[in-house]
């Protein structure tokens, strides 16, 4: 079956612009996670959803970052007033439920470049 998909695969934007990144999880997966992969920072957790609610937003780096999930499926990560330090690969993952024992399946990522 289809895996986790993310769009766009690449996004180049100018500093100060808003961007939206999309994640389409595996069908039937109720948990969805966003991570960020930056040079020198490794993989950082941003936020996760169980259904449409986000019990843990602790990894969002600033209030310029927000995410939503509607219909328990697709999620959008929005970055407002982008800065150069936001340049990174943004990874999405999904799992059947939000449990550490449940395998997370990762998408290919969106590479964001802020000029």
């Amino acid at each position, binding site marked *: 079956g289809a*895996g986790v998909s993310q769009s766009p695969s690449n996004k180049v934007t100018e500093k100060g612009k808003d961007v939206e990144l999309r994640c389409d999880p595996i069908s039937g997966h109720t*948990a969805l996670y966003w991570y960020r992969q930056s040079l020198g920072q490794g*993989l950082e*957790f941003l936020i*996760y959803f169980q259904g449409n609610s986000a019990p843990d937003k602790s990894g969002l780096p600033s209030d310029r970052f927000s995410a939503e999930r509607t219909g328990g499926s697709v999620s959008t990560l929005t970055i407002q007033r982008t800065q150069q330090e936001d340049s990174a690969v943004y990874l999405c*993952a999904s799992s059947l439920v*939000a*449990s550490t*024992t449940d395998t997370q399946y*990762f998408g290919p990522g969106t590479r964001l470049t802020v000029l």
Partner: protein
Amino acid sequence: AQSVTQPDIHITVSEGASLELRCNYSYGATPYLFWYVQSPGQGLQLLLKYFSGDTLVQGIKGFEAEFKRSQSSFNLRKPSVHWSDAAEYFCAVGAGSNTGKLIFGQGTTLQVKP
């Protein structure tokens, strides 16, 4: 707070040689531990995981890892490396049983020499 340290940023081994990638974690309770691999242009793929029981776990692609509580380590091993194993490897610890949130190490890039 939970954390994961991968001491080696970059490792080079010859094809056919054995491999060990180091991972140390910090976690107050019994940890849930994972190794993921990221090949160029690919998403992360789960290699293996440890939750409880036998401390030596087998994974895909011939990899294994050993959980050592006394050393707070979960090192990844492979007896004979193939050129296709060149990739970035990430160790991770689960932040809590009810969240699924993973705390990742910085990653180790493996280069394989012919």
